[in-house]
């Protein structure tokens, strides 16, 4: 037909991370997400495009919003979904990841959305099964759909990502959200900075073209958007920060600190929030917060990713990979 595009718009079989995508591929996903926003506003929130596809949501780590967001996205595209969580499944009985996946494949599935505690688990699985694999967060590696929904939210607000100044605040070292956002933002031309305790900033991050702020006040003055990460409380036990109270006093994003910010500055957070730790309630619920639009956009972006991958084929994936190097 006249307007035929290559399968998957060149995305390939899987979405493992944003590191392997080009700026154009990321923009294609964001553009495709636009019309999917409207479907969630319809009375009948459903289109038939993935009718007959079976999607397994395989969650080895607890997750509420990511899993539910994927499930809404899948159902609104008319796919059939099955949720598997690590507790109460054969995973607990010691089954390996590949055995679990092969068992699922034997039941004729089409796509797997996986969250796993080990970095690299998504790539590992994607290389071993013919189904499409979407990374729903793997260890400290990547969480690509989170970063895509963040990019979409920023684009909604600013119209343009090129040249936008975004600072990620918090535990950069252990954060897959930070990693995916850094890759995504750099590829679409944004300027990226990070800010946090020295112990939680990866060594050599400047080599990626990322600036580092030691003081959150400086970060706030510089930024168009402030991306506040959740502080994993177990980091304190591991000795990365002295105390939660200390963290809030030095790095907490408060309304008072934001008085020095640009007028248009927005605040993002991937959720779930520790109110009073990394972000104060008057910011989270204030006019600069785009935290709820992030959640809304999450469904649209995941619909776009599912849609674009569903028609992808291994040969196209190979071609895409070779084109990247």
């Amino acid at each position, binding site marked *: *037909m*006249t*307007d*035929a*595009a*290559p*399968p*998957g*718009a060149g995305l390939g079989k899987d979405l493992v991370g944003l590191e392997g995508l080009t700026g154009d591929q990321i923009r*294609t996903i964001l*553009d*495709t997400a*636009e*019309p*999917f926003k*409207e*479907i969630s506003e*319809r*009375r*009948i929130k*459903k*289109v*038939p*495009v993935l009718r007959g596809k079976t999607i397994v949501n395989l969650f080895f780590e607890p997750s509420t919003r990511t899993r539910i967001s994927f499930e809404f996205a899948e159902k609104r*595209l008319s796919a059939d979904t099955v949720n598997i969580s690590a507790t109460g499944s054969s995973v607990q009985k010691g089954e390996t990841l590949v055995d679990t996946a092969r068992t699922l494949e034997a039941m004729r599935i089409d796509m797997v959305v996986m969250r796993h505690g080990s970095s690299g688990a998504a790539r590992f699985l994607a290389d071993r099964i013919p189904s499409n694999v979407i990374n729903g967060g793997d260890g400290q590696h990547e969480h690509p759909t989170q970063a895509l929904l963040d990019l979409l939210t920023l684009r909604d607000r600013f119209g343009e990502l090129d040249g936008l100044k975004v600072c990620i605040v918090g535990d950069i070292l252990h954060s897959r959200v930070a990693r995916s956002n850094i890759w995504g933002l750099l590829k679409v031309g944004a300027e990226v900075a990070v800010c946090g305790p020295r112990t939680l900033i990866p060594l050599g991050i400047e080599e990626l073209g990322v600036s580092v702020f030691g003081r959150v006040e400086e970060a706030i003055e510089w930024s168009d958007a402030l991306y506040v990460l959740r502080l994993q409380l177990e980091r304190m036990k591991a000795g990365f920060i002295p105390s939660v109270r200390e963290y809030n006093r030095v790095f907490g994003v408060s309304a008072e600190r934001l008085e020095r910010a640009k007028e248009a500055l927005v605040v993002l957070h991937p959720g779930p929030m520790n109110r009073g730790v990394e972000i104060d309630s008057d910011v989270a619920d204030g006019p600069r917060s785009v935290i709820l639009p992030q959640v809304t956009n999450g469904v649209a972006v995941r619909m776009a990713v599912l*849609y*674009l991958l*569903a*028609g*992808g*084929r291994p040969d196209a994936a190979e071609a895409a990979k070779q084109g990247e190097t």
Partner: protein
Amino acid sequence: MPGTTGGREKVMDRDAVEATLRELAGLIADRTEDPADLMVVGIRRRGVELADRIADHLERAGFAPVDTGSLDITLYRDDFEQVGPRPVIGPTELPGEITGRRVVLVDDVLYTGRTVRAALDELADFGRPRRIELCVLVDRGGRELPIQPDYVGRRLEVPPGRQVAVSVPDLDGDLCVCLVDTAEAG
């Protein structure tokens, strides 16, 4: 090179298309008892601008402001398994509740009927119109589904290896109908 215009043969120029759209609007008007009931909905992409032009003609002919909308049928296509995803999807914008209304669907070319099938399915997800009619600028035959138009601008015989290309000003900078070689229609 022989074939002068690269195998592109203009069969309707701007004036001919305008006159045909005016006629189509007249035919729709003849069947309209209650203008407030009418909704003119274009199928993306080129049907949308044609629908707007038909609505303009209706308004010039004295009808109250005509409700217009657009429908992107990409997610309702029946060739997803064959063709795969198309990354460019436009918005579907309907001007309000469609249940109980008379909807005139507008598209540029009617061929297999599969696009119209998809459009009918999509409309059904928005509500239950009292009546749905189909208006096309060009009917080139070749139906693969039992779908027939209510209003036809021009019927065209299309030789093998050729296809109909409708140009509209917003997308193509011109308003015309051409026959082109299938290979270069991309």
